[in-house]
């Protein structure tokens, strides 16, 4: 089975710096594979290990994507081929432009049985792109997938919703967004890291693709700022557990929250 797995390269949310004026700086941030997508990559690799075929990794984004370390990183996690749309026109792309660009790239990739995506991205976590992509391609599309099996040209999946788990049979090809607990992504082995440099990489720019409905953004970002901080009392309670417990209860009682 041929699987396309979509991933996003994001500024590491751990490296986001809040400046004293409330603005946000990403200048120091390392760009990494969005951690939610690691589960999608692992799921794709496991399915191909079990059923044969190949995994094509696909990402669209700004110039950081073309960084050779970033390319090796994704390929060392098991995909056989890498396809990238690298274009600074995709910096801060909204979910619609991202999904339409992915759809245009998918159209160039040939036959596939399944597209996997992560649950959301570690930077924006809008959880939209996979669903929009599926609809643009006119394919069966589901999120919250916590289990996928392939048998007889069909996908048997479990979908973990708030109140129930649905066991679904989904016709292929389909687009599925997986949960974070679908698997535990393995760490790349030395062998895989060495192999990664030899795997095929294809790079396009937006000019190479026919993106439906143009490149205009559908949302205007007005500001990105650190959230308002509330000043807290920061009272430390010391002493033995029993004393500390009593002291806390005293404070809470005075606050009127007991």
């Amino acid at each position, binding site marked *: 089975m041929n699987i396309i797995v979509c991933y996003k390269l994001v500024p590491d*949310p751990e490296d986001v710096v809040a400046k004293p004026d409330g603005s946000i700086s990403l200048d120091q941030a390392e760009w990494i594979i969005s951690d939610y997508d690691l589960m999608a990559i692992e799921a794709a690799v496991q399915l191909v290990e079990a059923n044969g075929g190949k995994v094509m990794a696909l990402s669209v984004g700004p110039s950081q994507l073309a960084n050779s370390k970033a390319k090796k990183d994704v390929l060392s996690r098991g995909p056989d081929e890498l396809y990238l749309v690298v274009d600074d026109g995709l910096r801060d792309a909204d979910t619609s432009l991202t999904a339409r660009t992915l759809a245009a790239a998918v159209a160039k990739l040939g036959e596939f049985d399944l597209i996997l995506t992560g649950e959301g991205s570690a930077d924006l976590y809008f959880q939209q792109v996979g669903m929009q992509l599926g609809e643009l391609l006119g394919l069966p599309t589901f999120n919250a997938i916590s289990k996928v099996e392939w048998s007889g040209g069909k996908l048997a999946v479990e979908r973990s919703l708030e109140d129930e788990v649905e*066991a*679904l049979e989904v016709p292929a090809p389909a687009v599925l967004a997986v949960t974070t607990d679908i698997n535990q992504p393995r760490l790349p082995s030395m062998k895989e890291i060495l192999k990664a440099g030899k795997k095929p990489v294809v790079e396009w720019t937006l000019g190479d693709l026919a993106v439906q409905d143009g490149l205009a953004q559908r949302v205007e970002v007005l500001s990105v700022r650190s959230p308002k901080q509330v000043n807290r009392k*920061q009272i430390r309670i010391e002493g033995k557990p029993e004393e500390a*417990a009593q002291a*806390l209860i005293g404070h809470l009682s005075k606050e009127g929250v007991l």
Partner: protein
Amino acid sequence: MAKEMWVFAEKPALQAELLACAKTLGDAAAAVVLGNQAAVDQAFAQGADKVFWLGEKPDHLLLDDYVPTLAALLKEQKPAGMLVGATRRGKAIAGRLGAALGVTVLADVKKFIAEGDSLQVSHMVFGGAAVRLEKAVTDIMLATVSFGIVEALPPDPSRKGEVVKVAFVEPKWKAVLRERKPRPPSSVNLAAAKKVVCPGRGIAKKEDLEMIFELARLLEAEVGATRPLTEGLDWLPRERYIGVSGAFVKPDLYLGVGVSGQAQHTVGITESRVIVAINKDGEAPLFSQSDYGIVGDLYQIVPALINALKARK
């Protein structure tokens, strides 16, 4: 023409909040309802001025199968926008509708701000480290909205309004539902809780949560969680986790037990009145965001608290 704001939510309680929100955003609020006559009446009681009625859902269909119906309806009626309840299924439906209509979905909106004729929205980004303010530049605004951003209106069963029946549009593809495995019902409504006790990874074993539940019972608090306890460890249902990708709480008292205080979690608690941290690491970031902090082993502090609270009763 009157500007209509629509809502679509699979959970009635969420629909009630979205209707209250929609009424502040448009001249009229309409609910798109899937269900029986009682569900239609309920939408009116919750504040809908109009109901687009999809009828009752046959068992073999998924809510997802209504996406083509909803897309056709939105294209035909052109409301100002639609608020979709941000359940997992709701997010999938919103995303697919966004693609069908050629708009970007404003995801997990925390606040709507009317600016003249345009509507601005804010949501969390970078795992809670930043708030992003933005504005849709498309005709129809699609947004997903979770519990807790607006309070539901008191129900008024005497309210009535126009019902528009909507015909089902056959989807191009369908999945076959093989089985439905209900999860243990979770009646947690963290967004509404007045007190929240929140265990974190400082809890070593699932069994030890029993003492957290006992503490919560004595405090008359709901039990929340950090994400690792619900996803990954699976010790508690996901509805219980607080933070950027989970629930936002605004209780009078938040008590974090063995919670480090990463931004992804703490953005969900900033509106708490009093924040208390119990952590053995005096450097844990949650302390600087707390009103009261006890540095110590939770396995000693929590039993001491339980005893002291019992003695008080």
